[in-house]
């Protein structure tokens, strides 16, 4: 029961752009170091110092799942993930085309689609990211954290407004 409802949360502001997540993902799954085998990829705008890791969001109403003509893609509710059944998959790449996040990839060496499988509940990208740009948390906690950070902003704005009013 424990991992149910857990999700990967990416806080791109914290990402240093080191791409260690790509290496460990590829080595963990394939025993091979090669970023094109990684389920997570860091998109970079180098001249702005902006780095955004992109991975599968394990959608509830997953376009990849809906589009698959042979129903090879399904939801695994235990781990809250979307999985590919390679015994059924015909490699048509419809899922690659339809994913709005580019999270479904096609491995040109093994000729197979692939996506994040949350490392069966112990995501290596999370384990190796010391700056915690990627975390694996309960879905409930995600919105609580967001609520708190938004509330903080409101509180600061309120204080600033009070100071402004007082000085007028």
């Amino acid at each position: 029961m424990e991992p149910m409802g857990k999700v990967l949360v990416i806080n791109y502001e914290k990402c240093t752009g080191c791409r260690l997540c790509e290496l460990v993902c590829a080595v963990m799954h394939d025993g091979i170091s090669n970023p094109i085998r990684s389920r997570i990829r860091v998109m970079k705008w180098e001249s702005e110092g902006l780095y955004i890791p992109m991975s599968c969001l394990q959608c509830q109403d997953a376009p990849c799942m809906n589009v698959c003509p042979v129903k090879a893609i399904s939801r695994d509710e235990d781990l809250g993930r979307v999985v590919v059944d390679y015994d059924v998959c015909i490699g048509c790449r419809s899922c690659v085309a339809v994913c709005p996040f580019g999270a479904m990839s096609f491995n040109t060496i093994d000729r197979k689609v692939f996506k994040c499988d949350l490392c069966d509940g112990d995501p290596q990208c999370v384990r190796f990211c010391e700056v915690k740009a990627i975390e694996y948390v309960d879905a409930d906690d995600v919105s609580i954290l967001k609520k708190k950070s938004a509330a903080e902003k409101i509180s600061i704005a309120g204080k600033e407004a009070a100071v402004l009013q007082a000085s007028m």
Partner: protein
Amino acid sequence: MPLNRKIAYIDLTTGDIQTKPIPLDVRKKFLGGRGLDVYLLYNHTEKGCDPLGPKNTLMISGGILTATCASATARTHVMAKSPLTGLLGSANMGGFFAPELAWAGFHHLVIKGKAKHPVYIYIHNGEIEIRDAREVWGKTVTESQWAIREDLGDQEVKCLVCGPAGENLVRFANVMSGIKNSGGRTGMGCVMGSKNLKAVAARGTMDIKIARPKEALEYNKRFIDQIVSAKVNQTQGALGTPFIWGATNSWGGIRCRNFQYNQCEYADDIEPERIDEICEETMGPYHMTGCFGCQVHCRAQYKIPEGPYAGVYDEGPEYTSQGAFGGETDTPRAVTVLTGNHLVDKFGMDNLETGSLISWAMELYELGIITSKETDGIDLRFGNDDAVIEMIERICYRKGWLGDTLADGGIAASEKIGKNSFDYLIQVKGMSNLHSDERATPGLALNIATGARGSDHLRSRPAIDLYHLPEEVLRKIYGNPVPYDGPLSSEHTEYIGKPWQVFWQENCYMGVDCLGICKYHTTFLGATLPNFEDWAKVLLYNTGLEMTPEEIWDVAVRCNMIERLFNLREGLTRDDLKKGDMLNHRYFDEPCRRGAIDVVGKKIDKKKFIQMIDEFYEHKGLDKTGVPKPETLKKLGLDKEPSHLV
């Protein structure tokens, strides 16, 4: 397999390209990176060749662990005969280039000849192509890289480029990659410029099979935990390398006003905390970035807060820029350091050499050795921020008499300026000293005097000497992987045992450079960080190559010896002030005037210094003149060099 990565031999004159595998026995002797590069340099350059001529050979490489899942193995190494010193040229940089080169199929490039017009080399999944770079020539460091990506239609391409400084044959031009990864020191960008080689672009998607993936991952995790638990790396990760400058300045180990003082006063505006504030103000709370696969993330991101370059994005500044454009020139203002740092990144020029030469010219100006006639009216006094910024641009574009003169490097400039200008030039083997002052630290003085590429903190500095570690701790570090039972002292102002520490560090740093690991991940600033024993395991798990810690040590000793052989072949003699293991007289004659109580009044005792050199030579197996003894060469398997194995 990492071990199936190849060497490519590229002749820019004829366009001939050959690729060869790297035999296992060559790997076992030299591993890769700097170690194999120096072997290639010794074998593929002729004695006395013109560093700017087609016969000079440029080596570009990644370490043997590059692009594996071993932590922080992103270092790129570049080597050639130096146009600055006429001796060993070598530069090592972080970033993302070397792994991309490895995924494109290569660990080593050997580039000869000279192209008829500007070209760049494109390496893609085992294929190598020489392409027209006439449209790219003249562009700055980042502009060049974005233009090449456009040309190839691939935003994932990683480039090594020379900037305008390299094109203008500034003798200390850098090889650059990304925003600010700098293969600085000894002018490797100048060698690129001399070959009409604007860039090397790599893009690769070839598999690198990890020998024992599970163990490699688990060991990497252990490695990272060890690295990020070190206080020094936590501070690096928060404040970046500026913290080193701040800490060193506090006790008086920083050059100020060329070499007049050993501490920069009124430096609040460039203290690490202040620099960090600016980074936070301009880039937000998370403003640190890192090289491939590294969890130290020691590099800050910033925008220049004010002045003519206000709002421009760059990375750093490293402690070297604080030293070069703040301390040495006595212009401790953040905007000057940040702007200076940006300009050298944009031009592709060595910040250490640039700042050092400007501060030397400032001292000459104040002494009347050069006048406003030579400076085109620039008031080149210490503390003149505008003059520092102006001179950086003048050096890059060789503008004016002084800009053009300084662009040829210190020794050539001193010969042109004449009088007693050379006496004030703080250099070893023709390479300017970095921003540090070693008069109170004999171990560090020995390190810069004997460094193979010149006055250098990254090739043999026993930096942990400053921590006053208990002797038993020192014994544990310096007694492995080969035994040492000679004297050691915890006191950084002492002369005892320092030669062994410098010798040990020289081999430690050669080790990481062969493997391709960053020095912040070994016994450089952190006494508890991994070295030989851990490397043996990392090497085995990632590459399958089985070597003992002692064997890795032997590789390091061997490769350092080839560096020595190269320098000797190019004219190194022990006491030569321009080409030897000797310090400027000011180290022996002028005592420190500022700093901590055990630093004030200190200078290097020449007699003891010479004894240290003798002892250092003994550890290395050299005779009294600094030449390797025949039995040393035989023991290291170097008695038949050049042996042309690859």
